[in-house]
């Protein structure tokens, strides 16, 4: 009986500490790209002492379904939305009521600390160089392999800096991403641990290194100076290039297979008929 109690207590301890660790890990992977605790706002607000601003019930509700709360017309949510320049917090399929509580507990714990471990990444603030931009472009295009072997950006994203057919159309155009994510710090943090589900599935197992983040951010800042591509002209260009290529390929085929079999009988008959007709015409003229 006694023994059983000890084992149970040990297991419970193990579970809670494991659970605390897991929550920290969860925060790092899912929240840190947009939020800090005491590090100032990124895309989303600084979460230090968040419970002093709004009660736990409301917060849990928001965490479970951010879009729903915003669309319900809640005034505070509207305010948050305008602060985030229209960026809506993604809904996390792994978010539960229990998880939300744990996260809020963690935030409360960390808020008490002088310097939270979630204060935010130390983003280098050295000015971007031409070499950074160039490396960023190379990484984006896939000319240079990402260190952890994730797929290059161009697989899914387009950007106006690409010659030819542009990039992928699965994901948003990144020409103005630097502006949308309000600058270097936010974008860098976001790239270090992307929060959206599709980005996560690619970059969680093979994250970008700080060097790569810097280069890509530099590249995105560079592209900002250009105009984003108009999607409709891009589509038209794609179509026109496609039609042109088909005509060209058919032309090449025609040359390669120039000696292919062509009609024998019809050509024969037509040529002789033409000759006869011509002769008849000239004879009638003579007459």
């Amino acid at each position, binding site marked *: 009986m006694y023994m059983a109690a000890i084992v149970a207590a040990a297991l419970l301890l193990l579970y809670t500490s494991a659970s605390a660790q897991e929550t920290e890990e969860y925060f790092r992977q899912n929240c840190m790209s947009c939020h800090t605790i005491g590090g100032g706002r990124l895309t989303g607000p600084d979460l230090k002492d968040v419970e002093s601003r709004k009660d736990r019930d409301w917060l849990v509700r928001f965490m479970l379904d951010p879009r729903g709360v915003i669309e319900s017309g809640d005034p505070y949510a509207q305010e948050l939305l305008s602060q985030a320049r229209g960026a809506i917090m993604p809904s996390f399929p792994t978010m539960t009521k229990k998880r939300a509580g744990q996260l809020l507990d963690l935030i409360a714990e960390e808020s008490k600390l002088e310097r939270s471990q979630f204060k935010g990444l130390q983003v280098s603030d050295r000015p971007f160089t031409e070499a950074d931009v160039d490396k960023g472009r190379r990484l984006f295009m896939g000319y240079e392999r990402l260190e952890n072997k994730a797929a290059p950006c161009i697989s899914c994203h387009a950007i106006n800096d690409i010659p030819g057919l542009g990039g992928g159309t699965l994901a948003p155009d990144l020409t103005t991403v630097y502006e949308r994510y309000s600058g270097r710090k936010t974008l860098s943090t976001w790239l270090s641990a992307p929060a959206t589900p599709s980005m996560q599935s690619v970059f969680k197992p093979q994250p970008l290194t700080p060097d790569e983040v810097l280069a890509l951010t530099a590249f995105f800042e560079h592209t900002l100076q250009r105009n984003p591509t108009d999607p409709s002209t891009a589509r038209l260009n794609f179509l026109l290039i496609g039609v042109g290529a088909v005509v060209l390929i058919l032309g090449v085929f025609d040359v390669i297979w120039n*000696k292919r*079999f062509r009609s*024998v*009988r019809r050509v024969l008959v037509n040529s*002789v008929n033409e000759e006869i007709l011509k002769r008849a015409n000239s004879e009638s003229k003579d007459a």
Partner: protein
Amino acid sequence: MNVRSQVSMVFHLDKCIGCHTCSIACKNVWTDRKGAEYMWWNNVETKPGTGYPTKWEDQEKYKGGWEKKNGGIRLKSTGKGRIVPNIFHNPSQPSMDDYYEPWTYKYDELFNAPEGPDQPTARPVSMVTGEYINVESGPNWDDDLGGSRQYAENDPNLDALTEDQRQALFSVEQLVFFYFPRICNHCLNPGCVAACPSGALYKRGEDGIVLIDQKKCRGWRSCVAACPYKKTYYNWSTGKSEKCILCFPRLETGQAPACFHSCVGRIRYLGVLLYDADKIQEVANLPDDQLVDAQRSMILDPHDENVIEAARKNGIHESVIESAQASPVYKFVKEWKLALPPHIEYRTLPMLFYVPPLSPVMASLDDTLTSIDKDFFHDVEESRVPLKFLASLLGGGSEGKVLYALKKMKAIRIYRRAMTVGDITMETAQRALKEADCTIEQAEAIYKLTSLCTFDERFVIPPMNREEAIEMMKDPHEHRTNTGFGFVDSPKRSF
């Protein structure tokens, strides 16, 4: 010596009257089906003429047969490397228009027309699309020089002639033509078999008949392009290619093929030849002018003890050897050297041989009488169908072989005339025979087999010994337990 047996054929063009009975017999038995309407496994062409499909002899276009390349020979149309880039579209495929679009008539409209002021007609409808068509061409559209401006003048064999000869050939008083019936040649070096990517075509070991396995055929149509005689056809309904099967079900039951059996002019001969299969490659590589002789040298004397011994060793049945000894084809091709292979320069080594036709003398007003005593073969050399034309068709380009055969035939006519009419002396006839390299015995034999031949003399069909031939493909004991009853449509337990 690797002795094989081959059922071979001779067509005596001097006897062909161009009645197309052979074509109809074949059509009724084999190709009166959906997808096969346009096929004529047997057809009769008028020469000069472009034939069926139109201008099939123009291998610059049709790319049939073999060509000499890098010291060897290769197919003109395809090859192991060349087949890959052309896998989705074979570039040497004749179109339906080059054969003809098969049609029938809407007889309903003729018989059930309502009463009216106009004559009812039966309009032609395509047997492919079922829609009304304007008939522009048929399988013997240039028969008897019909439409000769378009067709006959474009016979590829006329390329061998001078411009004067061509002009003369088509001037009204000298117009001449002969008939050229064609079936599959069941070649020794068949292009169709070599071209098939699926391995569906094969040459039957026991009798050399070339067949297409309808289960293995995948409709690549490489055989259609590769056959220089255009004797394989694609069935658009079944998606398989088909060709003349030399009526093997009839042969196996001792009957001559339908076209042979029905031949009105009795121009067709069929019999076994023994040949040396080891020589095929060597012969097919020789220059054009040596091909006719070389092919003859491959054909072995069935009376020669060594040949018989080698044949036995190769598993050729005694009855087949005996049949080869009585073969009329052997006599025409090898002994008498009368029959010649068509277009042997395609190098497929065809095993159907043609006796060239004699034609009327080229006569002009001041030279109508020629003394037969002085110049026996004046009219052969001056015949209306120029020797060059026949040489292009049957002699591999050299006139000598054709001239030899024509002279012999002419000499036998002189000999028979001395016998029956008597206005030529026998000495003159004998001199003519001697000049034509023919003995009296040979002249008699040729005369008999040409003019008085019976069914059994024309068709010496070897016993096919299927019970032995089947051992090459499957175990007879197993075969026995799998057939016997209901092998066309086996009975199944059902409700």
